[in-house]
Every structure is written in structure tokens, then in C-alpha cells.
């Protein structure tokens, strides 16, 4: 699903002539950018409490709420999640809890 960063367009230019005109970014390149590095608190999802109302999916600014083939919530994509906590805030069932990143020393959520 994620595009490689080292495609021809996104390769790190070595000379000013090689930078894309107008500094444009080519299609869907944001999918390769790990915004999850910003996170200091992490959403922990409880599948037992979740009713898949999709309020969190709708409100997430980073498209980090994962859904399965039936459109039900299936987890959180920590590669993109910046830890804003909106999902936990809007959840009517308290199925998402924000926890400090320090609680997960061996699992950064990075790919």
C-alpha cells in the first residue's frame, strides 16, 4: 500500500536543477511520509468496547483509523497517527485510551 520514497520523482535531488519545478510533490507521496514520528501519546483501542460507529474514523485528521473489509474498525495505523487524541475524545464508548509513548519502549509503531 505504501509507495517507496526512492521513486525517480522523490529521490533526493543532488543539484538545484533536479528539484521538481515549483517544489511540487508528486501523486500520493504523502502516503510514504511517516507522520507518526511526532506522537508523544498513543491511542490504544479496545475491540471489546468498540461499536464501530466510525466517529473516530470520520474525525481522524491523518486517516489513521483502520477498517476491515466489512467497514468495521480494525485498529490504528501508528505510521500516520500523530497522537492528537481526537479519536479518544469523540469515542462514545471510551474504547480508545491515550497512553504515553514511554509505555511502549520496544514498539514505536514505525514500519
Amino acid at each position, binding site marked *: 500500500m505504501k509507495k517507496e520514497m526512492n521513486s525517480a520523482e522523490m529521490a533526493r535531488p543532488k543539484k*538545484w536543477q533536479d528539484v521538481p519545478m*515549483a517544489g511540487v510533490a508528486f501523486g500520493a507521496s504523502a502516503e510514504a511520509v511517516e507522520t507518526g514520528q511526532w506522537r508523544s501519546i498513543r491511542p490504544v483501542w479496545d475491540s471489546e468496547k468498540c461499536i464501530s460507529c466510525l466517529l473516530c474514523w470520520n474525525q481522524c485528521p491523518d486517516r489513521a483509523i483502520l477498517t476491515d473489509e466489512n467497514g468495521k474498525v480494525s485498529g490504528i495505523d501508528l505510521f500516520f497517527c500523530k497522537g492528537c487524541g481526537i479519536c479518544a475524545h469523540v469515542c462514545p464508548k471510551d474504547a480508545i485510551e491515550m497512553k504515553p509513548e514511554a509505555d511502549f519502549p520496544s514498539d514505536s509503531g514505525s514500519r
Partner: protein
Amino acid sequence: MPRREIISGNWAFAEAMRQINPDVVAAYPITPSTDIPMKFAEFVANGKVDTNFVTVESEHSAITACVTAAAAGARVMTASSANGVALMHEIFPIAAFFRNPIVFGLVNRSLGAPINIHCDHSDSMGERDAGWVHLYCEDAQEAYDSAILAVRLAEHKDILSPVFVCQDGFITSHSFEAVSMLDDKTVKSFVGERDADLPLLDVDNPVTYGSFAMSEYYFEIKRQQVEAHRNVLKHYDSVAREYESISGRFYPKLDKYRTDDADFIVVVMSSASGVVKDVVDELREKGVKAGCLRIRMFRPFPAAEVAEVLGKAKAVAVLDRALSIGGTAPLSAEVKSALYDAGAHVPLQSCVYGLGGRDFFPQHAMEIFADLQKGNIRAEERYIGLLE
């Protein structure tokens, strides 16, 4: 059929816009450029153009709409003056950075305060470093021709830069004079259709405009814009010659009026050059080797060519219609810099004239030439027609 009509500078520019038939015009009215969008709105209302005419709530919004439309791939034009131009200031470098080939009718008016509706060049000079091409027109004919020529210049693949087509507020914009206009078909085939690079509307090849560029690449993108302006100097003449082939009128970067053997040269821009040229003729009849160098292209500045014209003169005066308070007036600074690079130490008098629409008369030009002949040249700026 080509026509010759009595028309104002603003109407001439609007008529060129009608013939160009841009995809998008977003504008907000301000004196003395108001006539341009006003006349153009008539063309829209009467079905004379297919343009999407966007009326907005401020100049900032007008230029923002222009930038986004141009990034989408549209051919875009607009117009403004003075504080309207200043309100657009934030967006101008973005247009240049996005390589939006917008053609902009800039009708020069003094920047307030004090509020004043008359001509000087303080508005466009404030946008000197925005990355736009600056063309300054002497009369309505040139404003008409430059609007059409500028479309091709701006959209040239090695250039892709927005262009200001400047004319003097009221003096040119509101005076009626005879202007020769091309027939619609000729203009249409000269400008053709815009073939946009990386347009936002090409959904099969999506791009993001306005991405973040920190210390790693900001500098490199700016260097590309420098190259685009170097390419303006390289390609301008061929575009202007092509325009000459359909119109019979050639507009060089520098209008060299009797400068070939001139000992004394006055450098000036826009409408005041007409006065200086008349005085040059008068002095030539008396045997004085006088000349006038009119700078039509201010950005990019054709420095080497300017130095070539002025380098052998005995004395030069540069007339600026704008101040750089606490420093050297913009045109003077450019000319001095060009001469320094060429190793030419020509005695040079900086003069500021015409601020806020102060009249510039033949006697003023006569006095400037007399001082050059007498060697009455000072390092400090002189103020022409100031109450003192």
C-alpha cells in the same frame, strides 16, 4: 480586421484581454486600474469572452484566486494599482514560485500614505524582488501590445514566470490616444492555448502545490527562479520579434533613443520618456549630443546591455519615479550596479521626479541635460520639481 481607434490605456489593455480571452480573471477594483476589470466585466456580461470572471472581496483574494486557477492550468489575467498591489504582496512570490504565468495589468499609482490617486512607481517597485517580470510601457499602444506579447513570454517553457505590464496611472491609463489593434483571429492564433506544466486538474498525474521546503531545498527552488529570469533575457527578443511579425511593432527590452553617439543620456521609464525624447530632439537641433534610454524591462534587469549603452557617455542622469527612503532609488541603484560591473565609471546624477503625480515638464528635462553638460553632478539625489 485590424483597427485604429481613439482609446485609453486601460481600455486598450481590456481590449487585449478580450482578444486573449483568458480562462480566468479574478479582480478587485482600485483606481486607476478599475477601468480594466470594469470594461472586462462588460465583455463577460455581453458574452464576448468565455472567461470565468471571479469577483472577490479584496485584492488579496483576487490574486489568490488567480494563483490557484493558474496552478490548475488556466490562463489567467488581472489588474490592480497602488495599495491594492501592496495587499497582494504576500501572494506575489507564491505566484512566481508556483511558476504561474499570470499576466497582470499594473496601473502605476503612488502608494499611500498620504492617500493619493496619481502616478508614481512606488507600487510596482515594492514588488521588485517578487520574482515577476516587470515591463514598463510608454503609451496605450505599448500597453495593448505588451498584454498580448506577455502571454507568450510568461508561458514560454524556459520562463514560466508571471508578468507585470505596467502603465502610468491616469497619464497613460486615462488619456485617450490612437491605438492600432490587431484582429481577433490574429491575437487568438498568436497566444494559442495554454499548455500547462503540472496542472492541478490533471487528475491522472496528481501533484501537490505549496509543499513545505525547509533548508534542504528552499534555496534550490529559488535558484530555479533566477534561471527563469536569465531565460527571459535570452528569449525575450525572439518572442518580441514574433509579435512584430503579426503587428509590425517591435518592443526591445531597452528603448535606445538617439543614444548611439550620445554624450549625455537621461535614463527613464514609462510615459515621462516622451517628454525626455522631445527635449533630446530639441537639443540635437542645437548640436548637443543628447540621448534617452528608456528602460522597458526592469525585471529581469538587462544590466550588460544598459552598461553598453551608457558606458561611453560623458554623463548620465537616472530618473526614478520612486524613492528608496534612506537608500538609492531603485532604477539608479540598478544602473549604477550595471556600470560598476562593466568597469565604467560614468558621472551619474540620481534624480527623483513625479512622486504622487507631480508633473514632469520639458523644462525639467532641459535643466537636467544642462547640469550634465556643465558637469554639475552630485553624489546626493536631486528632487525634480520639489518645492524648495
